[in-house]
């Protein structure tokens, strides 16, 4: 007997309906015009200027880091240009008590959260003192294992919930990170425990060379939150106002007991994956690059601020000069760090009583290294 068509369940229709709901939120367009007045977060002139200052400062940090890396004066570096709105406007909506679990490209957020720049440089160089996080700076060091920070963020947020803290755990991964098991476990546990967490996917279109389309057949990455039963949103990651607005809202919901949020920011990294030999011309065209560069977060925010009379070339140059000076001073400080010793490493292996094997080796190396 032929099935009655109208009674048939249509899973394809269900999927299409869900996917179509994920429209990209934009507030400030590429021309620096407000296109979504209702959603405008209403930042004060002072706040707008401060956010622009941070984005310009961080663009300079990126340029200087690339050049320092080429001179052999920095180690591991993952370029950030293009992602300033995703990184800094999201961070701008956070408070000091919020805890950040970054991926390796998310060094700007932890610097603006309080990690001294010279420590960031030492971390890049592979000096153990670079990850000696100062007390009161609520961050973990950048995660290297893709996705691990997601499930750890849920643990931090669960801890905050148990302590009754008025803060949230915030973590970042990329488009490739959403393919990892820990990504799903992280958002799923977060939903199950209704913890105060914000999960960012900075969709910069490529996981090293692998394009976003090869990661998944899902139309958006944000929709992955639906399966975990957590609110999720897709936002223009080149638009500082939109990123700020959705983060602010997610934070408020979390603090009011509303649980976690998954935020996908559509963005692009102009540079290579890292400075360790990646060549983007092997997998991207210059046409694609220039198409994204037109959406640049600094260009549109500059236009917006200039129109409001809050920004001009002189201001921008001031910030650029200040950034250069601060970077220079931090490099000098990092240069003064002591040479690393094996005995230093042995001392930070265990917090409690030193185990027999460590003590024995510590004695040997202390003797050796005192000569």
């Amino acid at each position, binding site marked *: 007997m032929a099935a009655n068509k109208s009674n048939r369940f249509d899973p394809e229709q269900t999927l299409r309906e869900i996917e179509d709901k994920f429209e990209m939120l934009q507030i400030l367009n590429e021309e620096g015009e407000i296109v979504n007045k209702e959603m405008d977060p209403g930042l004060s002139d002072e706040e707008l200027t401060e956010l622009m200052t941070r984005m310009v400062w961080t663009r300079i940090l990126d340029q200087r880091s690339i050049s320092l890396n080429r001179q052999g004066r920095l180690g591991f570096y993952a370029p950030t240009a293009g992602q300033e709105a995703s990184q800094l406007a999201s961070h701008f909506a956070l408070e000091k008590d919020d805890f950040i679990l970054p991926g390796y490209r998310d060094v700007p957020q932890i610097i603006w959260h309080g990690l001294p720049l010279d420590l960031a440089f030492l971390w890049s160089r592979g000096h153990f003192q670079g*990850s000696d996080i100062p007390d009161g700076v609520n961050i973990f060091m950048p995660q290297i294992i893709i996705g*691990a920070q997601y*499930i750890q963020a849920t643990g931090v947020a669960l801890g905050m919930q148990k302590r009754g803290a008025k803060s949230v755990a915030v973590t970042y991964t990329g488009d490739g990170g959403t393919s990892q098991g*820990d990504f799903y*476990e992280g958002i799923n546990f977060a939903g199950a425990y209704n913890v105060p967490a914000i999960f960012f996917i900075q969709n910069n279109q490529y996981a090293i060379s692998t394009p976003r389309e090869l990661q998944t057949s899902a139309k958006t990455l944000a929709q992955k939150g639906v399966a975990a039963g957590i609110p999720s949103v897709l936002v223009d990651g080149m638009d500082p106002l939109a990123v700020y607005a959705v983060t602010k809202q997610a934070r408020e919901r979390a603090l009011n007991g509303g649980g976690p949020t998954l935020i996908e920011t559509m963005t692009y990294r102009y540079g290579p994956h890292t400075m360790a030999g990646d060549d983007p011309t092997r997998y991207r065209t210059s046409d694609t690059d220039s198409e994204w560069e037109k959406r640049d977060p600094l260009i549109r925010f500059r236009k917006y601020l200039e129109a409001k009379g809050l920004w001009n070339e002189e201001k921008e140059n001031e910030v650029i000069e200040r950034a250069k000076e601060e970077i220079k001073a931090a490099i000098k400080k990092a240069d003064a760090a002591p040479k690393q010793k094996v005995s230093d490493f042995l001392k930070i292996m265990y917090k409690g009583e030193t185990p027999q*094997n460590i003590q024995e080796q510590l004695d040997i190396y202390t003797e050796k290294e005192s000569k």
Partner: protein
Amino acid sequence: MAQMTMIQAITDALRTELKNDENVLVFGEDVGVNGGVFRATEGLQKEFGEDRVFDTPLAESGIGGLTVGLAMQGFRPVPEIQFFGFVYEVMDSISGQLARLSFRTAGHFHAPVTIRSPFGGGVATPEMHADSLEGLMAQQPGLKVVIPSGPYDAKGLLISAIRDEDPVIYLEHMKLYRSFREEVPEEEYTIPLGKAGVKREGTDLSIFAYGAMVRESLKAAEALEKEGHSVEVVDLRTVQPLDIDTIIASVEKTNRAIVVQEAQRQAGVAATVVAEITERAILSLEAPVLRVTAPDTIYPYAQGENTWLPDANDIAETAKQVLEF
């Protein structure tokens, strides 16, 4: 004093530390209402509430990551991995993250974590449940690996593990859970980590063992005594870090030694014990140090395991080779 099985002693230790320190959290798959598949957490959720003793979604890596985050928030997590055969799912959290937490932050964070898990064989589980994977853990710098051989040690060692400031893998041999009872004090006590226990004194041969192999070694020692051999049995209790002083003192007394492990022969804890003895006490030895182990196959299916696992007869046989060398 009460007569307790090892599983009761473990529950008692968890209860003791849940009472002592409000930062202690017990969680894992089915540990709440169900009290754990082996009942190690029986009654604890009822007594301490869902905030302190809670079920997790079914994902071992998730349990591991949750543990890292809670440790960074100042808690003292005691997660359960339902069977240690599932540990591969959570290897990054254990070896990649927890073991490195102090090192990676120059001591800013640390991981006062005890991961409890049933391990070892001989109880006819489905495949992938029973295995002896302590060697994997012992090779990871940053971890401590503790394995009790009976109820009394289980309680004292677990309390020490939970109070330890660093990550401890606490492995509970499934065959020991209910196979015998011992006198266990109802009050709290600790057995220090990194200290072996001499379970039987002797002068002719030292047997170094841990977990379920301690009882098998004691049985072998009794049989050998009837043949006129005085055998010492040392329970390592902590396989990382090893109690080198106790091991070497015993070898220097008996001049002959064997090392027993339920795990396969390749690499592993027994090989490390042999290496330590040869490096530190070779001039005391009258004979080579031999190992008693399982063969280097994948852990067999249930019907095959008892022919595969080392037992008292294997131990006595190897002991005689060394005694008669």
